[in-house]
């Protein structure tokens, strides 16, 4: 599903050059639930951003669903992201000026789906994450766990093949974290959605199919779990 080949990411300033990712090659199968761990600053989020086409590698190749991404322009990348990928961020990244329903509708807004259909699908996604009674609330009126559920609903509303989750439980207590993890596991099982999750929590990582570890921008190990 996702193929990274010899990916490098270098950040340059006038005086310093930082190697954030060093020669990363990784294959992720369709329907796989992969977790990425490593100390802070080791390049986990950078790797996830590159997989999500939010950032570009300095060198190396990225293919998603057998399509090489290099020759895509802004518009094609936007469409690709919109149709194939759903994001879940540690800090939720909801638009505070919009109510929950409108936040969840967002990916559909860029697919020319009719307003009525958007509302129906968004309501359905919110129901899946158990928040159908909060549709007209604003993000500021929700708890951290509820916000993350809204973010999950937004990520799944367009039925993407891939979900990229950057520390989705990082800001939550263990109970809330468990609930979020259960939703992700359910998505992976029921819809065969490929999920890549960055986490600091070893227990959460052990619930996924495979754990890869990064250290100083390099991939240092890969463990497969039988769940």
């Amino acid at each position, binding site marked *: 599903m996702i193929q990274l080949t010899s990916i490098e990411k270098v950040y340059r300033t006038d005086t310093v050059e930082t190697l954030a990712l060093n020669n990363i090659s990784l294959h992720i199968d369709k329907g796989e639930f992969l977790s990425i761990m490593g100390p802070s600053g080791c390049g986990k989020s950078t790797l996830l*951003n590159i997989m*999500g086409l*939010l*950032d570009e590698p300095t060198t190396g190749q990225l293919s998603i669903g057998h399509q090489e991404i290099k020759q895509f322009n*802004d*518009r094609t990348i*936007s*469409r690709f*992201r*919109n*149709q194939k990928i759903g*994001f879940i*961020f540690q800090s939720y*990244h*909801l*638009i505070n*000026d*919009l109510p929950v329903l*409108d936040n969840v*509708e*967002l*990916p559909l*807004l*860029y*697919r020319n789906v009719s*307003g009525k259909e958007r509302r129906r699908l968004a309501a359905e996604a919110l129901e899946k994450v158990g928040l159908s009674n909060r549709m007209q609330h604003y993000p500021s009126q929700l708890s951290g766990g509820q916000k993350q559920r809204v973010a999950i609903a*937004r990520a799944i509303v367009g039925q993407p093949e891939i979900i990229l989750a950057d520390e989705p439980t990082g800001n939550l207590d263990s109970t809330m974290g468990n609930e979020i993890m259960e939703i992700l596991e359910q998505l992976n099982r029921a819809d065969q959605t490929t999920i890549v999750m960055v986490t600091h929590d070893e227990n959460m990582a052990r619930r996924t199919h495979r754990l890869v570890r990064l250290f100083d921008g390099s991939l240092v190990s890969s463990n497969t779990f039988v769940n």
Partner: protein
Amino acid sequence: MLKNYLKITITVMRRRKMFTFITLFGISMTLSILIVLTAFYEHLFSTNYPEIHRDRSLYATVLEEVESESGGMRRGPMSISYINKYLKTLKTPEKVAFASIPNTVNTYGNGKKLKLFFKYSDPVFWEIMGFEFLEGKAFTQREIDNNESVAIINDQTRDDYFGKGLPALGKTIEINGQNLRVIGVVRGCPITRMVVAADVYLPYHLQKRDPNNQDMNGSYYAIVLARSEADLPAIQREYFEIVPRIPLQTYGEFKPDRLNANLSTYFDSLVQDTFFRTGEGSARTRFYIFISLFALLFMSLPAINLVNINISRILERSSEIGIRKAFGASSWTLVAQFVIENVLLTLFGGLVAILLSAGFLWWFNQSGLIDYADLTINWTVVLVALVLSLVFGLMSGVYPAWRMSRLPAVEALKG
């Protein structure tokens, strides 16, 4: 999509009250001033009551007798004899009328002192103008031939002199020591219609001096009515062919050798006399250039200010840009969103401006600063205001939106 943008615009407006206030204040005030100025322009120059044929009329308002050697000049309105000889005899016009410059007189009526403007005219004046008669009718050549002492007054004078709402027809009004029989009452017009506005209108034979004045200069304007607007240049040609051949008079030591005369549309006669009296070229062209430059400068200041405010406002929303990009918005979609937001905001400012101007014009009309003021917002002005709002929206929205849409998604998400 548009509904979503509208929702965001309203939320942002409500959330950023100070920003909204500054933006709307800038746009509304600028547009209000432009709308009010346009209303004043229309009030001054367009075809209005009672000058209903202004679009096919020419105005002769001034004669200039010049002595080249000394540079001396006599300048002013014309005498009746000049108008009769050189303007009433023109072949191309449909009608030629004359009316004097307004004079003031103090009189007493209804127990109070009244300061009135009065004006002399010929009967043709009443044929060209579209005065609405509330009582009676206009004087004709018959009253002049019979040397009758008659007057036409406006409704304000009737109310002040005879008492509010009381009929004035057949009653006597005293002007300049003459007792005049009121034969008509007209609905008044604002003083800004300078050629026609007065409180009392008298037939020209009642003027003691001018009917026999053989000088070129006097106290009259001529109003020349064409059969159609297309005839105006032909009338001007005919008159300007005559002017150089008019024999000049000497006044003691002053021996003029050149005569300058005007016969122009209302706009040109007013602008030429007021702003560009001695300049060469078309007064209208220079007036429009002057006004356009003023409007452009006037509008560009708030627009530049808005660009600045918008950049910082959009910067504040970089996280939103990142989110939208992550979920499929292309750079162009984002440009469209921010431009639409801005256009909606400025259109709203435009609507506020229309309301503000309507309020101001209503107040002005009621205030009595100009009697009979009839300033209005017409649809052309509204349309101009809306187009200006759109231009504002685009001017102040496109650049910041374009700049922000280029921001890499990952950078934008960091906020």
